[in-house]
């Protein structure tokens, strides 16, 4: 049987041990907190993806509206702002300053339907270009890249365009 004296002698954790335990606890909490921005970060990606879908669809529309020959899109192969001054097409789009766009520089890649067979993919045997005298149909793969300004966060959207005739 223990006497009161023995209880008095009994010792618990030292301060050092408590501090170590606290550090471990804090480390765990920080780990959990560190994971939280990952969700927010993913949300930012989703918002960018959403905006990129809207904006790239609108850009393709502008190309078609203006009957742009896709071969002339090489003028847009560097990132630029969406025009949003008063009276310009994107004037009321929320946070439009956060986005910029360009056309990916792969415009030389005509798709199929080439008389010479140099296009990729090659046209089927016996295929004739729809425009008399043309060596190919002019069908062009156009890719628009929308990104957060000055970051590597971007999304690419591709459509195929024919020159307006």
């Amino acid at each position, binding site marked *: 049987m*223990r006497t009161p004296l*023995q209880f008095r*002698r*009994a*010792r*618990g*954790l030292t301060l050092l041990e*408590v501090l170590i335990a*606290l550090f471990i*606890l*804090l480390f765990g*909490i920080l780990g959990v*907190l560190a994971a*939280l921005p990952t*969700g*927010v970060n993913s*949300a930012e990606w*989703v*918002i960018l993806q*959403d*905006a990129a*879908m*809207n904006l790239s*669809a*609108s850009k*393709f*529309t*502008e190309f*078609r*509206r203006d009957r742009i020959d896709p071969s002339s899109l090489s003028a847009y192969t560097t990132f630029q702002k969406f025009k949003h001054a008063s*009276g*310009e*097409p*994107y004037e*009321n*789009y*929320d946070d439009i300053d956060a986005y910029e766009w360009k056309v990916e520089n792969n415009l030389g890649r005509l798709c199929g339907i080439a008389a010479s067979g140099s296009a990729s993919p090659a046209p089927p045997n016996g295929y004739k270009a729809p425009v008399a005298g043309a060596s190919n149909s002019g069908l062009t793969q156009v890719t628009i890249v929308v990104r957060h300004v000055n970051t590597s966060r971007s999304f690419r959207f591709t459509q195929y365009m024919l020159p307006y005739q």
Partner: protein
Amino acid sequence: MTNRPRRAGFTLVEMMVVATICLLVVTITVPVFRVSTQTVSSVERKLALYAAARNILDTFESESRLAVMNERGGHFSLKSLAFQDTDPFTPQYANPDTIKYHASRREADCLNMMELQPGGYDYINVVGGKTVPLIPGSQGHPLAYPTNWGRYAEGWRVQLTSTLSYQTPSVVDVDQMEGHSSIDATDQLADVAQITTPVHAYAISNYHKDNVTDGGYASAIRMYDENYDMLGPGKEPRNARRVQTEEYLPGRQHYRGISGIRVMDLDIAYWDATLNAFVNPPDSHAVYFSRPPKALRFTISVCDRDKRVGSLTVQRIVYLPTGSFKGTVANTSDATYYAFTSGGTAPTNPNKGTVFNRTKRLKNLPPMYNGDYLWEWGDASPHVNTRYSEAPVSPVNDLGVFGTYRLWPRPPLPLNW
């Protein structure tokens, strides 16, 4: 060698110190978690807002790209209205005409157009007296132009609008309507999350039958397709019908619609290829285009139902495959639509320049073009042409139904008008 007992524990003081430290840590940490949780929750709501806006714009794009025109170039019109809301969610500014979407000015535009559906099957599933197991309104194969038989769908009259533009009139039993807000304008303006944008589409069938000689019409207006003013002011398919009153009127089973999309603002601008800019018609004006413009720009503001994460304004430019109009619209604010009056002679050339591509102030348009007007003309014994409005409402183009609501004051016209 220590004299430490084998089974030593914490003293009371040590326990209290440790508990205090733990409490401190938890007290400091909990608010951090709470803020983080709130942030995540807020981001989730914001994401839902973006998703809703994208879905809405997808719907608008897919519908408006189907717009067609007839040989006279009609059937495409925009109407522009704006209201002042009373919801404290949206701040008021001294000059709200310069601040859209995030202020108390609510945009409530409207697009009217036609969509084709050649070869739709008979609505009553009876062909040659026999009942056939066809889905009403479904497409025949191969696709073919519909016959003269009256109950085949030829196309759709479509309206994409804000419920502020075509408000549910108080005299109508809203239970008889579907696809339309049952909340009146006052409530919608007090709570902007209640404003919706339905898409109404009414089947077109048998208009040619109604228009040929057996109807007793004057020869000058025989047209073997739809009535020439079928989408005239006030005749838009603004409400869903439940009751099919006549064979050749689009009834409920001839209706398709998308209802209940909550959108604070619906602003539709058309592309003016001469100005090289998108143009909004002036408030309280309509523009009837002789051909669709090359592109439209939809601007919408959306908020969540509880209005906890603010509002979001996004835009999408939509290419109209049938759009060939340069978009030059004269600012006339006139009332001219078709140059004939009730009981008078029919126009020989309804597609005249005075009709299209001009701004028309809605309030100035003649009452006979209101949807409920039972008008008659021609040389037959009073030939009452059935009205083509879809709800027994009082005149809308006179803006009479807006009398108790505050329409936004008409802003000064832009310089390019």
